[in-house]
């Protein structure tokens, strides 16, 4: 147990990176995901099918491969990109496909009457989307987005394979240094993740209940 107390500040500081990857990931994925969702909903075949293929292919590849690929590719081209940035880019590329599904479901859940009425008042498709449909859809998407945020918090632990000093990497490194208390340290890591993710999913469920009112 001493190992936990002695290294607590070092380990908890890693949560900055954990939340950083998750926040940047979800933020940028939202835009990329919305773009993908719009492309996927489009009736124009040469926009729809590439989007579908892209989403299906990206989702069939594990995130850890994206993390390795983007990190080594960019480093191999000579850029001094930080591992944090590489991991964030990989997360954005991967998670945007899941966000695309959430956005698509959100848009589809808005009654078509809204779009018809908006078009009837003279708004173009894009403006109708932007001013009428998406604001309503985003409210509906929030619980699912919070839930996706929770998933990214857990997936951020994968960033340790390229050396991002996030929370689990720090716990793991501490264990490699202390060596005698694996259960205590790893149990501590499990506890922290549980507290964070459980609270977030509880909040997500509450939001879902509130939205249904």
């Amino acid at each position, binding site marked *: 147990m001493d190992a936990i107390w002695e290294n607590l500040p070092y380990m908890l500081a890693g949560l900055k990176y954990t939340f950083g990857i998750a926040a940047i990931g979800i933020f940028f994925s939202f835009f990329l995901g919305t773009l993908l969702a719009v492309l996927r909903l489009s009736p124009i075949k040469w926009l729809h099918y590439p989007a579908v293929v892209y989403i*299906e292919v990206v989702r069939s590849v*594990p995130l850890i491969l994206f993390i*390795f*690929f983007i990190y080594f590719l960019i480093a191999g081209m000579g850029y001094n990109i930080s591992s944090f940035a590489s991991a964030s880019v990989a997360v954005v590329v991967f998670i945007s496909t899941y966000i695309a599904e959430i956005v698509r479901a959100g848009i589809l859940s808005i009654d078509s009457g809204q779009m018809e009425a908006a078009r009837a008042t003279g708004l173009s498709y894009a403006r109708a989307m932007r001013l009428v449909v998406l604001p309503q859809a985003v409210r509906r998407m929030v619980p699912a987005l919070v839930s996706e945020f929770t998933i990214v918090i857990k*997936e951020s632990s994968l960033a*340790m394979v390229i050396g991002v000093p996030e929370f689990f990497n720090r716990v793991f490194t501490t*264990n490699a240094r202390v060596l005698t208390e694996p259960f205590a340290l790893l*149990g501590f890591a*499990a506890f922290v993740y549980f507290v964070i993710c*459980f609270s977030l999913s509880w909040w997500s469920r509450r939001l879902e209940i509130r939205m249904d009112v």
Partner: protein
Amino acid sequence: MEGLDWNVILGPEGRHMLASGLAITLQLSVYGIVFSTLAGLLIAMGRVSTAPALAPLRWFLAGVTEVCRNIPLLVHLAVWNFGVFGFAAVHAFTEPLTAFYSTQFLASICALVTYRCSYVAEVFRSGLQSIPKGQIEAAMATGLSYRATMRRVVLPQVFRIVIPPLGNQYVGVTKNTSVVLVIGVPDLVFQAYQIESVTFQVFLAFGAVMAIFSLVCLAESALLNVLASHLDRRWGGAAMAKGARPAATVTA
């Protein structure tokens, strides 16, 4: 892009490395799928039970699934590999298996199962609970025994509902196997890393493995979708007109 040396993945050594990695990945996936299905089914059956005497079991299972689901896979992996499998007693217990599978391989399977079983249990639970009680009552009223009711009426409906989301979970297990290189299991991603560190051909080494994973996972989803439609046709009854698509599909 500098000279791409396709030989690193198409040459005999590269092919051998990728093949051995793929073998490990597929083995891990199969064991992970089988055992997490079993574990998930048991947990689900425990959670849907209504006997008041089993209430503590229900609470326990609810707690366990909630804990397992909120912890990242890497933490499961580390706890099993460095924690549980670090004890001499456990080593002695798994001694007969170590001739075929390394300790890390066994730890990986345990981690995959504990991570995935809570999701699988949820799938089974909602499947079991979605069958209205009326079905069982009506079937038994027509004279079918409890066993026959289960076999002929309840379980076919459960399977139909459960296969698509279960298929999603199975593809998830296959993707989850990619993290085991962290504890030293020589799977496909490990081999990609090996090839890259010797030849520096990032695009080819990781690109090839990404393509292989993509093919495996897409094939898996397609297979499960076929299974789902097949079951729909067999057990869907009047609800399934010819050519109708199932209610949910398996995606990667």
